[in-house]
Structure formats: C-alpha cells, structure tokens
C-alpha cells in the first residue's frame, strides 16, 4: 500500500546536498547499495530514480523487482535528519514525455550522459532513522535494553 511522504522528507529528497542511497537485491538475495544523487520526488509526490546505465546492477535489480514484486530501500540523510524508505519500483519510463524531459534535464546537469530509465518507486514504509528518534523509540519499547551502569545511583 502506497503511503504519502511527509514534507520534511520530500524536501530532503529534493535537496541536492542530501546523501541518497539506493539498495536493491540481486537474484541470490545479495544487497547492492549505491549512492544515487538522481533520486528525487516529482511534482506529484512520487519518488523517481534516474538510471543512467542500462546494464548496471541496480537497473537489473530494479527490473527483477518490478517483474517479481521485489522491494528496494532508499536512504536519505542531511544534517541530523535521516530517513529510510522501503518500497517497490512500479514503473520504468523508457520512452515518452516523462523519459524525454528527464533525458534533457539530466544532460543539462551532467553533460554528455545517457539515460536508461526513469524509475518510479512507490513508498510502502517510512522509517525515521535519525538518532534522537531511534533512541527514543528504543527506550520506550525496550526498557530492559540498557546497561545498568548507565542508571546507577
């Protein structure tokens, strides 16, 4: 089930300075994680990823995921904020107006590069991975998970 991204996360994904990682898995289930600054959010709030290399591992893994219902993960971080998005690739634009606009746009940004696909990723689960949030969640859910010296009198 697709979910809506909070405005803070949309801003992070659109920020060129954010660190963005895309994790996919291959046929054997081995994760493949790469930094992908071409991850973003379009005007309709959909996550997209511009794949520049047709035969890249990421692209092959995305094809496998869209064909067999596999999931991927996107990690984005800027400053102290960090999020993980679990989702599925649901569409690959390889032709048509969306593709061609992206093709022109990426070449304006990066110069003489090619474009293989504009992947559309449907988010299914959001995790706020920032340290204060994760710590608060852990302490609330698992009060036993603490070394005693931290709370000695």
């Amino acid at each position, binding site marked *: 089930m697709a979910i809506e991204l909070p405005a803070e996360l949309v801003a992070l994904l659109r920020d060129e300075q954010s660190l963005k990682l895309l994790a996919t898995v291959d046929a054997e289930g081995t994760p493949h994680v790469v930094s992908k600054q071409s991850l973003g959010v379009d005007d309709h709030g959909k996550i997209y990823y511009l794949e520049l290399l047709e035969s890249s591992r990421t692209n*092959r893994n995305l094809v496998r995921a*869209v*064909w067999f219902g596999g999931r991927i993960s996107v990690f984005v971080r800027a400053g102290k904020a960090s999020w993980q998005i679990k989702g599925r690739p649901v*569409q*690959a634009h390889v*032709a*048509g107006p969306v*593709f*061609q606009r*992206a093709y022109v746009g990426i070449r304006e940004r990066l110069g003489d590069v090619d474009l293989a696909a504009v992947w559309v990723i449907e988010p299914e689960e959001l995790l706020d991975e920032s340290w204060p949030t994760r710590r608060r969640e852990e302490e609330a859910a698992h009060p036993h998970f603490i070394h005693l010296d931290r709370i000695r009198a």
Partner: protein
Amino acid sequence: MSLAVATRSRSSQLDEVLARHPEVPRLIAVKIDAQRRGVHYTDRAVAAVDPERHQLRGSYLFGSRDAQLTPLPESLLLRDGTTILTDPTPLEQDPYLVDFLDGRFWLTDGEERIESVELWPKPAYYDRTTSSGIPMKYVVTARPQRLNIFQSSACHFWGNGNGCKFCDINSHSKQQKAELGIPTRLRPEDVAETIAAALEEPGRFTGICLTAGTDFRGAELFDSEVDHYVELLQAVGTKFRTPRFPSQLIGTAFNERQLERLHRETGLTSYTSDLEVLSERIFQWVCPGKAEKVGYQEWKRRVVAAVGIFGRGNVGTGLVGGVELAKPNGFASEDEALAVTLEEAEDLASKGVTTVYIVWVPRPGSEFREQRNASLDYYVRLAKGLHAIRAKYRLSVDFDDYRRCGNHPDSDLARLL
C-alpha cells in the same frame, strides 16, 4: 453469465501458465498473450486517443489481423517499459481489449483489468514532410525507441509464388500503396532527411533497423538488395558524426562478399537474417523461396559466417514462433517443436549467432490465414529456452533487445543478464 465464466477461464489460463513457470515475469507473459490474441480498442479507448500525442498506425511491412489501415493506435507499452507489438483484431477472434478507465488506458480481458498500458508516443517528425513531398511517417516509422526503414516492401519470393507461407508482405504493400500512397521503394534522400528530423528530438531513439522484402536481382543473387541497403545506410550515415551507428539490418542471407561490403562501406553494426523456422524439413515447406534460392543449410552457414564479419553478439536470426506447428506438415506436438527448435538454436549460439522469435500471427493476407498460433505455454517455454541459451553462451542481444526492438519476448528477458 457466460461472459463471466469465459473471463475466469482465460484469466486462470494465464495464472496457470505462470504457476508452471514462476521464473517468467507476469508482464512478459501478458505481452506474449496480447501478441498471441491481439487487441481490440473499445469505443472509450478510441475516443481517448489524442493524435497529437499518440502514434497512430502508419506504414508497415506486414499487415494486421483486421486487414484494415484504420487510424488506430500503433501499439502499447507496459509499465516496466516492455513494448507490446500487437495489432487491432476483430472481436470474434477473442482478443484482449484496450479500454479507457479512470483516466488511463487498460489492457482488459473481459471485465478484468490485466495491466495499465500506455500508447506509443508520437514522434515529432511524424508531422513533417520531406522536401520531395512525402510525409516522413511514411518514410521512416517509429517504435518507442527505434526507427524503422523499410527500404522496399516488395518481395521477389512471391514473384513465382514461393513466398513464405506466413507472410503477407506483398498483399499488404499493395494495399498501403493503393489506400495511402505509401512508396514501395524508398529514396536515400528522403530517408536521410527523415532520419535527420528524427534525431532532432533528444532521447527519442536508440537504434535504426532496416529491412525489406528479398530482391534476387544483380550479378550475384541479392546484389541488388545489398546495393539498395548500402545506398540507404550511407545516406543515413551522413547524419552521424561517428563512423558506426547503432543499427540492425534484417536481410536475406547474403554471402561473405556482400556481408563484408555492408560492413566496410556502411556504418551498420549488426546483421540479422531470418531462418524463420529451425527445422530444415519445415523450412522447405514454409519458406519455399528461401529453400529454392539458398537452402536451409547454406542460409545457416551464411548467418554463422556473418559472425566473423560483424562479431559475436552482433548477428542474429529470427523465428516466426509457432509456425513450426502449422498444419499439416509442422511438428505434431509442442514438446517436439520446442526440443528441435532449442537444439538448433543452441547450435547457432555455440557459433555466435543469437536466435530470437516473434509470436506468429496468422494474417488474413498470408497463405496460413486459416491456421492458429501456438499456446501461451509454448511461447513462454520458447522465450525461457532461448533466453537460457543466451545466458549459457554469454551471448549479447543488445542490438535486438526490449528497447532496440521490443518484439521478442525472449530478448526482453535479457534485461536481467
């Protein structure tokens, strides 16, 4: 009630086949089945077609199941980028429907929505005309990412009645010329001008394919056909700054001298020559002209020889998948047809030739118009088998893949390699 029963039955057939072949993506099976059964555009879908944005049917080498030249959409794209090359089909032939529901196009089977689809986008040059006054859409036709140059739509095999029995090239050509004024033979200047116009659109095309009917004429068999290809390829080459450009020629089985000439004098990067069916006995029946002029073994030898000229992974042969089961002289069972086909395809792969198939459509203008194509299960197994052979021999099919062509379910699977 009967419609509901029929719908369940058809839908479950797709599911049953997929259950037997879990390693085959559902989207590719949907493509195969849509090509196998054809599509019918509902009135709602036709009303939603925008001729400014959507590519309508234009000039093509072969005819369609409805034997008409109606301005319906050219074809469809699935959401994974897979192309479906299929054509309008009369309702009585039990096609899938293309409908327009909730603001988008859907491939439906009876009442069931199978997949959302997009219509092929219309290229900008389709609105332009060459200096000689021919609409460019009749000179070079488009697929979502490929340009087609059909240099001549006349096939000499039909001259003495020896055309391939599944083919309707000449009857379709006559119809196109009579109804639309589409030229049966292209001039290099028109082609070059149209290619230049097509290349003005950034990100629109990744390859060029040339094909035509066979031409016997010349000092040596097929010299005239080669002359025309050389002429067109050289004209196309003037529109690129590199000596070679991603391209495929699907031609007759040329000899080594002709192949070397094509490679030396043009920017061509790949060569395909279709054996159509991988059984000498059935080839002689289905393709009597090819059998008479070249012969199965010599055709195969020439395709293999092309590997030495164009390189491994740049040479292919195409099959009209399912025609090997045509009655009365085809294989009696799908199992036997598959075994023989894959064995021969493996022999070709071991020599550097890749084999791809298209789903056979018994067209009204062909001799086999009363026949039926094979089962979905057969086509799925054929796609799997050819893909596995390519994987085993690490044979690339970049020049004829989901994007550069889009008409071969087996090479769609190469996206995973």
